[in-house]
């Protein structure tokens, strides 16, 4: 048992599973300091689903990496990250890895780069249970077969001896999900987990994640560039822009009232299934500020500009 876990269990009910305060990430590069996260606050309650949405470069992946301490050594982190009441950033590195490795499961976008192509699925799946749970070879294999079965891989026991290339894209992603579930995590993170998949397969995988989350009462974070993926499947959504969270709302109220101008602009740019042919999409002017901009809030002017633009757009509609 990790130190602090007993205390955490006592008031686990009223404290969020993950609590991030004022998280900053600055990375030294040859082009200067990159201000990747400019102060992020975030909470994920037990058993709830949080969606993180943003365009490329907004910092959504780096937010995850910073929380899980997967950043390169040139990165400077500040701010606090508490997981189940434990101050993650104050822990010694080895202890932190052991705890997060066991209690957080991650599914990335491209299973082919996360899986080892020359090791069978069964052996790769057993790694986590042997390391974190101390299972023997046989028990680890049985657990792997059971998990594959749960995520809907047909002939699970037989397929343990197959290699990653013998699985289709959707099946490979199911293998990744099974691996992420190995240690019965409290938090499952899906980082663009369905981006590379066809729409019908994407729906299957998102349905599967939702079912597993409900059955196991896990908390879940879905990270996506696609607002529509997050829209129907989360309790709360945060929208990132230029290293900051610019909007945070319960999902079913995301578009109610007057959301942040960036959210309104983003919504207007997404084509929908009933857009008439040859309609023009609303295109926001300008681009997010440079990641190297040292001002504390370089996006302020852009956002004011966006707000005026949104108002004009909504009046003309």
């Amino acid at each position, binding site marked *: 048992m990790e130190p602090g876990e007993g205390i955490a269990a006592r008031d686990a009910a009223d404290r969020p599973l993950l609590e991030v305060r004022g998280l900053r990430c600055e990375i030294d590069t040859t082009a200067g300091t990159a201000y990747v996260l400019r102060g992020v606050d975030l909470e994920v309650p037990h058993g709830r689903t949080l969606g993180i949405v943003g*365009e*490329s470069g907004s910092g959504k992946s780096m937010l995850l990496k910073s929380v899980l301490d997967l950043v390169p050594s040139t990165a400077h982190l500040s701010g606090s990250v508490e997981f189940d009441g434990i101050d993650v950033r104050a822990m010694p590195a080895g202890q932190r890895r052991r705890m997060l490795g066991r209690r957080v499961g991650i599914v990335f976008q491209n299973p082919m780069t996360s899986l080892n192509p020359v090791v069978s699925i069964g052996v790769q799946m057993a790694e986590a249970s042997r390391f974190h749970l101390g299972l023997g070879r046989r028990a680890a294999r049985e657990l792997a077969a059971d998990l594959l079965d749960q995520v809907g891989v047909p002939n699970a026991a037989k397929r343990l001896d197959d290699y990653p290339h013998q699985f289709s*894209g959707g099946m490979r992603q199911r293998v990744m999900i099974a691996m992420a579930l190995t240690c019965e995590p409290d938090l499952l993170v899906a980082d663009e987990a369905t981006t590379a998949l*066809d*729409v*019908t*397969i*994407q*729906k299957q995988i*998102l349905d599967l994640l939702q079912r597993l989350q409900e059955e196991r009462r896990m908390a879940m974070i879905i990270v996506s*560039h*696609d*607002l*529509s*993926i997050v*829209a*129907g499947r989360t309790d709360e959504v945060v929208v990132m822009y230029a290293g900051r969270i610019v909007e945070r709302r319960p999902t079913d109220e995301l*578009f109610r009232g007057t959301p942040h101008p960036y959210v309104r*602009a*983003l*919504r207007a*740019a*997404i*084509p*929908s*299934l*009933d*857009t008439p*042919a*040859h*309609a*023009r*999409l*609303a*295109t*926001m002017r300008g681009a997010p500020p440079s990641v190297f901009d040292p001002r504390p809030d370089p996006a302020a002017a852009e956002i004011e500009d966006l707000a005026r633009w949104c108002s004009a757009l909504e009046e003309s509609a």
Partner: protein
Amino acid sequence: MTGSMTDGAAVRAPYLREGALLTVDGLECTFRTPSGPVRAVRGVTFDVMPGETLGIVGESGCGKTTAGRALLRLAPAQAGSVVFDGVDLTRLRGRALRATRRSLPMIFQDPLSSFNPRRRVVDIVGEGLAIAGASRQEIRRRTDEVLEQVGMSREAVGERRPHEFSGGQCQRLAIARALAPAPKLIVCDEAVASLDVSVQARVLNVLQEIRERNGLSLIFISHDLAVVRVVSDRIAVMHRGRIVEIGSAEAVYRTPAHPYTRRLLDAVPVVDEAERHDMPAPEFVDEDWASVDRDLVEVGPDHFAALSPEALDAFRDAVGSGAA
């Protein structure tokens, strides 16, 4: 080795129209692989009128990209005919083929990998004209013209090379390059798939403006059904190498007739569930009623799907009761 050899080409598909700019009839594309032949495109037939945009949608492996490549003879077609502006492209060889290809440019998903990284972007845009033997002045004038059409300029582009541009800028440069030889039709294969939504919107708008201004026809191949909806007049749905449904964008999206089309539309994630239409759901007792191998039959005005007569009845019942 042309369409007349196969029995499929004997009957003209009911949805082919007179006066089309491009008519693809019974296109077949088979690849030999170590595990046996793969029939990537199986008897695909469609046409594109002048100034019209045809969207081709389908999931990976359905043959949409191969079909697009085969009509430009970038993939080998074993059978079928591709008649563009009165010329059968499948019969062209050598110089004549190359000359015709210039008037049928293509825009790919990843422009960076289709640009020579060591050349200046202004030269890349004008390259087609240079190969066609245009004079230096002519190339300069036309390059300025097409750069302006995609919202860029010679001054802004300067001496820069492809890697110095963002993804959205690269895609606009790819459009400029495609426009340079003043084509009548451009094939766009996943042209906006790698872009952020705000950038995607800008590129789509540029494409639409250019289409309107120049009276261009487009073939827009994409896996993204919402994007296809915005740009297309007509839509063809491909599944396992065949077209299973084709028709006006309105008809295909509002009253999808083939179960595969319905499944596809149903799986598309939407920001707001309200934008998903109530689709008529006919009951198909027999799965074979809507197999991919059925011929396409007329199910409504400018709307065709691979359905059996029984399935067609069921569909008409469902649409009728939905409207009532």
